Every structure is written in structure tokens, then in C-alpha cells.
């Protein structure tokens, strides 16, 4: 269980990215975080694993407070939190296998990671995860030889290699085409269900959030303005989150995309038939 109480973040420039955000995420729940760009979504999830330092408030994961930790203790808590990034953030010049094994860095001593001498159990698990995300055959390829969707699968495997108690997912589909986006979202939700993992997913694509999330939190200018089930996400609620003008523009874009997608699906079906 993750508990955020009155988390605030003010950047040195004076911009308040988050003000007084409180949130509880029980085990196994997938929370979608939506909101216009600059609303503080990215800051919020980076505050949880302290890639960004929150200025005030408390964050508790499984009974352990994260905000006051430093050095070794912080790293020990970070390894419990898997993170998946928008542009995959794989180490491009390493092999797929090394990228997955890098999820174990918080657990292994330096010499093991430096010599690539991971324990048998770690390697076995890495293979299992690669199999789970459907990339077993690509283990020895370099990460930059993969396609976008494949790279994001490696990113997922890396996060799972940490044996996390929580997944932080930052715009997992922003660099992917619509079809791959859905595959990735499906994989994510399946994996969370299999392991009873809680996850916080930043997502800019509202239809996708509606389809895959169990709960949606709307962020506007650093404060929570919506927190409910996807079914309660009415036009009014969305207008409140995004502001009238932006939401209209977004909806139009989404409609166009949906049309294009259904068109592509129809064509695919024809080809298949």
C-alpha cells in the first residue's frame, strides 16, 4: 500500500509543480494519472522514488517512509519501486539481457554487476521475464536494434526484475503507435493482476486510460481535481481537468485517431480474410 500525504514540490525557479497532493493506492490497484502537460504528473511519480525531491509532505510505501532516506537506505527502497519510462530509457548500447539484469543492480554488489557475473537465480529470472514479455529470442541483441514496442517490453522486464512492490509508469505509450500502445497497456495490466502489483500510470491518452485503468486521478496545476472510477469520468470532469478549450481540441484529435484506427483494423481484417 502506498500512501502520499500532503506532498508538495516547488522548484528552485519558484514554480509550484505539486501542492498538497494526498493519495492512497492499495495493493493491486492500477491508477491512471491524467492531466494537461505541466500539471505535475511526471513530478509526482518522480517524487515517489525521489528522482525529484519533494519539498513537503510524506510518502509511505508498505509502512516505510521514503522522504527522509538518503544514500544506501534510499537505494534499498528504490529497488522496491520499478519504473517504466516514456522513451524506454534503456541503455542503448547494452544488450537486452544486460538491460533486464540492470534491474538487479540494487541487489547485487558492485563487482558482480561490473563483471556481469550475476547469480544463476537472477539470470534464470531474467530469462523468464524476457519470455513473459515475448522477447526470449532477442536476449543477445543490442537494445538499440529493437523496435519501439519491443524496447518498452524490455523496459517492463527491467522494472519487474527488481521484484517491485510498486510500479511507476511514465507515459508508457507516448512514443508508440496506437496498436502497440494497446498491446503494451494490456501487458502492463495483466502483469499487475498476476502479481497483485499496485501501479501509478501517467497517461495523456484519455480513451486508453478509460479502457485500462481501475481508477483515475486528475491533476491540474499540481492539485488533485478528480479521483474516482473511470466510469465517473464525464465530459464535465474532463473539462474541469483539462480546461474547456484544450479538452475540445483533444477530443477532436482522439476522434480522428479512433477513426484512423478502426479504418486500419478494418483493412487488416480484410487482408487477414
Amino acid at each position, binding site marked *: 500500500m502506498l500512501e502520499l500525504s500532503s506532498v508538495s514540490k516547488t522548484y528552485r525557479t519558484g514554480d509550484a509543480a505539486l501542492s498538497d497532493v494526498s493519495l492512497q493506492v492499495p495493493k493491486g490497484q492500477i491508477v491512471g494519472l491524467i492531466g494537461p502537460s505541466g500539471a505535475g504528473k511526471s513530478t509526482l511519480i518522480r517524487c515517489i522514488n525521489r528522482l525529484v525531491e519533494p519539498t513537503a509532505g510524506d510518502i509511505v510505501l508498505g509502512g516505510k517512509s521514503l522522504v527522509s532516506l538518503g544514500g544506501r537506505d534510499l537505494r534499498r527502497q528504490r529497488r522496491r519501486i520499478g519504473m517504466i519510462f516514456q522513451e524506454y530509457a534503456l541503455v542503448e*548500447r547494452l*544488450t537486452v*539481457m*544486460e538491460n533486464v*539484469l540492470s534491474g538487479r543492480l540494487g541487489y547485487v554488489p558492485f563487482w558482480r554487476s561490473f563483471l*556481469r557475473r*550475476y547469480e*544463476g*537465480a537472477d*539470470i*534464470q*529470472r*531474467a*530469462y*523468464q521475464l524476457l*519470455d513473459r514479455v515475448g522477447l526470449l529470442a532477442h*536476449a*543477445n541483441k*543490442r537494445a538499440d536494434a529493437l523496435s519501439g514496442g519491443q524496447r518498452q517490453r524490455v523496459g517492463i522486464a527491467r522494472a519487474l526484475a527488481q521484484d517491485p512492490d510498486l510500479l511507476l509508469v511514465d507515459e508508457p505509450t507516448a512514443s508508440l503507435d496506437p496498436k502497440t500502445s494497446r498491446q503494451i497497456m494490456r501487458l502492463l495490466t495483466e502483469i499487475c493482476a498476476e502479481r497483485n502489483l499496485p501501479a501509478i500510470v501517467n497517461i495523456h491518452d484519455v480513451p486508453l486510460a478509460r479502457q485500462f485503468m481501475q481508477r483515475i486521478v486528475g491533476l491540474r496545476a499540481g492539485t488533485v481535481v478528480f479521483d474516482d472510477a473511470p466510469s465517473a469520468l464525464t465530459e464535465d470532469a474532463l473539462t474541469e481537468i483539462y480546461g474547456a478549450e484544450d479538452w475540445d481540441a483533444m477530443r477532436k484529435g482522439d476522434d480522428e485517431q479512433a477513426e484512423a484506427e478502426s479504418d486500419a483494423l478494418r483493412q487488416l481484417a480484410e487482408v487477414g480474410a
Partner: protein
Amino acid sequence: MIAQYPTTWRRPHQIVPDRRLRIALQIGVLVYLVLAFSTVEVNWQRVTEGMERGQRFIMGFLQPDFTSRWRDISQGLIESLTMTLTSTVVGVLISVPIGIGAARNLVPRPVYLVCRAIVAVSRSLQEVIVAIFLVAMFGFGPFAGFLTLTFATIGFIAKLLADDIEEIDETQAEAIRATGGTWFQLLDYAIKPQIMPRLIGLSLYRLDINFRESAVIGIVGAGGIGATLNTSIDRYEYDSAGAILLIIIAIVMVAEYSSSYLRKFLQ
């Protein structure tokens, strides 16, 4: 279920995937290193004796003596600085036509080959070697140094300039050609605007290099601060040598800082 997966993994080698070739290469490198180290004969007695001098040099560097040889130092500095400026100006003036001539997309093939040959000769000859010859011909002093640096500048600027011109945006040149402009108009309207900022940047960079080189060619008699430095090291006056080295470092730092400022200002 997990038992079906292997428990070992070896990182495939990225550059030389073939294992035998890799081992052969590694052994080759090892053998070379052993051979190379065996050619280095070190007279340890001489080295330990030298440590005392080394210590004096470091002390001289930390407590430089600017005053007792100041007349020599200032004379050498003035020679170096004037040599640097004049050779850069003359070198750039000569290298512009040669650089244009060495650009494949602007000139007929014979001109291109001649200009590229000039560039190749200038680049492949070490400054110090050129200086030795020019000192033999023109006598000791900064004039030989000026000629050496000019010669080196030509190869440097002309090559980079020519490479830049070959990489320019062809569409702009096409547009000027399409208006019926002459070759000189083409240079003025299509090439100059694209190349000018780069040429200024390169000239400033070369100014900096020429100053550093001017400190070297003095050692073989081509004037400048290098001659002063050579004398002070020969006399084991490490505090004066330290002062000269510090002055060189300071001037290079100032030149680097001001040239980056000037480049920003000119753009």
C-alpha cells in the same frame, strides 16, 4: 517451471564476436606491450637524481619568478604575440582562395587537385620540421616563425573551409545559379553567408593554436617565447621557466574564453 530457463549467460562480444580471433588479438596486444616496454631503458639512478630537479621545477611552478628575467620574457612574448597575429591574418587571407579552390562543388577538377595537394603538403609537415628548414633559409628570428605559422595555418583553414563548402546547402546555390548569377555572385550570395561565421570561428581557433605553436618553434630558433623558455630550462632556471609556462597557460585561457565570447557576439 522456472527451472526450464538457463542459469548462465555470457555477454556476446560487441566488436570482435569471433572468440578465437579475439584471443589472438589479445595475445598480440600483450606481446606488443611486452616488446614495447622492453625497449624503454630506464636509468633509475639518473631518474632518482632527477627527482630533486623535478621537485625544484614543481616549486618553481608554484613560486614562479617573473622579475629576474622579465626583459627576456617580455621580449619573447611580444615576438610570439606579433608573430601569432600576423601569421594568422596572412594565413587566413591565403587560405580563403585555396579553400575555395579545394571545394569539389565549385571549381574544375585540375584546380581542385592542385589546391588539395597544397593542403595535404601543408598538413603533413610538422610545424617544427618546417621551422627548422625556414630557419636554415631565412635565418634565426621571428620572421622564420611567422612563415612557419602562416604555412601551417594555410593547411588547417583551407582544409576545414573546403570541407565546409562541400557540405553547404546545395539548394541555396541552385537558387542563385537559377537567377543567372555569375560564379563570383554565386560565391557572394550563396557561399559567403553560409561560410562566414564558420570562417571567423576557425580563424579565432587558429589564432589560439598559433600562439601555442609559437612557444614551440622558438626551440629550434624561430623566435618568440619558446626561445626564452629554452634558454631558461637549459640554465636550470626552473622558477623563470615556471613563470613562462604560467604566462602561456594564462594567455591560452584568456584566448579561449574571449574567442568563445567573440563568436557568440558575432553570430
